[in-house]
Structures are given as C-alpha cells and as structure tokens.
C-alpha cells in the first residue's frame, strides 16, 4: 500500500444515491416536494449547514424507509446535496438507517465508486469484510465494512 487517503463523503451523484436506496430496500420518491418529520423544530440540535428552519420538511426528492414513519428529504443547493431527516426516535429512521445515516452513507459510497470506476474503465470487485478502525476510548476495533478493489479492465 503506497498511500491512504481519508475522504469526507459528499453526495455528488444522485443516480448513485437512488441505487444506494435500491440496495437497501428503501423507496426513492422522485419529485416528492415534502418529507414526513415531526413538523416543528425544537431547537435542541444544530441545523444542517446552509439550512434554515423554513427549509425543514421541504425537498426535491424524498426517500421512504420501510419500518419508519418519517422520511428523508433530498435537497440540492449550489451543487451540494444534503439529506434532511428527523432522527427523533419515534420517527424510526435512526434505528433503521443508523446514527448519522451511516448505512445510507455506506451504500452511497459503494454505488458512487462503482459508477465512477466504470466510467473510468476499471473493473470492480466488492467484498464484505472486517476493517481495523480507531473507535475512541475502545481503541482499535474490527468493524464491519465493504472493500472495493478497482483494476484496469
């Protein structure tokens, strides 16, 4: 291994986000302009970057997650896509999508990589595996992960 780069994931490819939803069994609601949430901002958590209270509940597309009563809103501003969602426990999203939407982030990263790699002429193999990761007070820990290997076709 000659270098390791850590990436702050951004949603840049909506088709990859749709594919990620399909991979997880979530339903992509093309053009749905509202997403279900508690309906009132309680002020106990910071707003997502660049968003105001007036933006909550509005979106360009939505994602429905089986087993959750709330939905995820997809909003694109100035080329940057943000997922808006209410993680309050009664809505059921965090229980299924994971803290910070980690399951959807993981699936998106896989699909975005696959698409970008295909466009660049690479063949991709995918494997579920254990990865060594630093987890704060627990130190190094083996966690579930996905490894994609890209080779020239």
């Amino acid at each position: 291994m000659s270098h390791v780069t850590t990436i702050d994931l951004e949603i840049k490819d909506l088709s990859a986000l749709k594919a990620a939803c399909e991979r997880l069994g979530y339903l992509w609601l093309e053009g749905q302009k509202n997403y279900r949430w508690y309906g009132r901002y309680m002020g106990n958590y910071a707003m997502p970057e660049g968003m105001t209270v007036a933006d909550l509940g509005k979106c360009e597309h939505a994602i429905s997650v089986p087993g959750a009563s709330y939905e995820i809103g997809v909003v694109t501003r100035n080329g940057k896509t943000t997922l808006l969602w209410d993680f309050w426990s009664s809505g059921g999203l965090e229980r299924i999508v994971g803290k910070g939407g980690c399951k959807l982030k993981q699936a998106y990263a896989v699909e975005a990589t696959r698409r970008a790699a295909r466009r660049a002429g690479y063949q991709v193999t995918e494997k579920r595996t254990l990865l060594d990761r630093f987890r704060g007070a627990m130190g190094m820990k083996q966690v579930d992960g996905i490894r994609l290997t890209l080779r020239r076709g």
Partner: protein
Amino acid sequence: MEEIIIEIDDEGAVEVKTKGFKGKGCLTASKWLEEQLGTTLETKRTSEYYAEETKEHVKINRGDGN
C-alpha cells in the same frame, strides 16, 4: 498489479488506498476517484511509497538506466 482499494466502514467513513503504483504515480492514480467521492481530509504516505521513491532516486543518480 496496480489496484485502487476503497474501504467503507460501518459508520460510512471512506478510505482510498493504492497498491502497486510506481513512485509518486500512486498519488495521482486515485485523485479522480477521491474528487468524485468528496473532499480529502488527510493523505498518509506509507513505507511502500518511500521505498519506491528511493528506488527512483537511485536510478536517476546512476544515470545508466539499470
């Protein structure tokens, strides 16, 4: 064999690694993918990177192409 390896953990954190590239070529080999996925937070060069760099220096210093 040249490979680009992407590892995504259970928190959705992404690491991109390269394997088998010669010298500094490894840094540019995965740049296009890193840009597609987001913003680079940190790049660490491994011992393999420095080993390849040293080999290149030796070749240049000898100047005989061997």
